[in-house]
């Protein structure tokens, strides 16, 4: 018998605390698969955010630090500058990365820090109970936009990938989606590419992953994936926005 699929080594045995069907778990696994395949688990340092993935340090077998809300890129900058021989990545939600941490996000890009940022865009604040995020879609109902996001008063969603791609320090920026198995395979390829970009010392590598939050979207996990495909992918087109030679 040949094993076709099993849990990657870079994930611990700790049961994930995420809600049923939450795609955070899938993205954790993809990062772990890439660490396994590149053989870099022992030389990688992760930085966890504030948000549902705050406990990421329990789930990865590599070292992980947990940063204050939005500050993961600043913490990762310090880690990487102190230990340039290590692979350093952050794992952040959209409230963390695109609201309270926007400043850090932009400046880690413009400084061209040689780290990898994994950005979970689920169009909502998950951990705190489903408030509107900068990435919430126009018309999308959340706890703080009960009549749907009104762009006249609440502005438009931020397309972070496109925005960061304009910065010279950003070496690689791609948007992928957990919208089925092909999307998952594609997301893994992008995460691998991001770590390879870091290995080559090219500058910031950034992967935006369109993800689901079934609980706060008020949907079954299956319907949430369908909703992502039908609503998020038109506002947030998938693809590679930057790939520096």
């Amino acid at each position, binding site marked *: 018998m*040949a094993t*076709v699929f099993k*849990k990657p080594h870079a994930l611990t045995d700790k049961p994930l605390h995420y809600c049923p069907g939450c*795609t955070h*778990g*899938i993205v954790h*696994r993809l990062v772990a698969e890439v660490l396994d395949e590149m053989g870099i688990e022992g030389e990688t340092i992760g930085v966890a955010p504030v948000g549902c993935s705050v406990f990421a340090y329990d789930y990865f077998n590599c070292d992980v630090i947990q940063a204050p809300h939005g500050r993961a890129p600043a913490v990762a900058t310090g880690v990487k500058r102190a230990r340039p021989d290590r692979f350093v990545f952050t794992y952040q939600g959209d409230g963390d990365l695109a609201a309270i941490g926007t400043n850090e996000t932009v400046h880690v890009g413009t400084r061209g820090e040689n780290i990898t940022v994994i950005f979970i865009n689920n169009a909502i604040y998950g951990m705190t109970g489903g408030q509107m995020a900068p990435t919430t879609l126009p018309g999308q109902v959340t706890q703080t936009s009960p009549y749907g996001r009104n762009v006249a008063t609440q502005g438009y969603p931020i397309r972070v990938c496109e925005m960061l791609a304009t910065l010279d320090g950003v070496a690689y920026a791609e948007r992928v989606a957990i919208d089925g*198995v092909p999307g998952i395979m594609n997301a893994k390829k992008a995460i691998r590419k991001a770590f390879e970009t870091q290995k080559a010392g090219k500058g910031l590598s950034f992967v935006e992953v369109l993800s689901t939050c*079934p609980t706060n979207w008020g949907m079954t*996990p299956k319907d949430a994936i369908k909703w992502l495909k039908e609503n998020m992918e038109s506002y947030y087109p998938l693809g590679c926005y930057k790939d520096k030679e």
Partner: protein
Amino acid sequence: MNKVTFKTDLCKGCGLCEEACPKKIVKLNPDKLNAKGYNVAEVSDEDMAKCIACAMCARMCPDCVITVEKN
């Protein structure tokens, strides 16, 4: 025969594996709960023969419940 095994105590009954299986042999068992209280996913003994070991179910599972072996 190919073999799909479930770490049933980790399953959250989300059903994403069900949807992903091209052979439609992964099913939530309405009569079986795990300690967390979720209806668990499984492949029945008779359906296991239809498994093509594509690992679609396992790749879709957020909780690393599933191991797939090919023979």
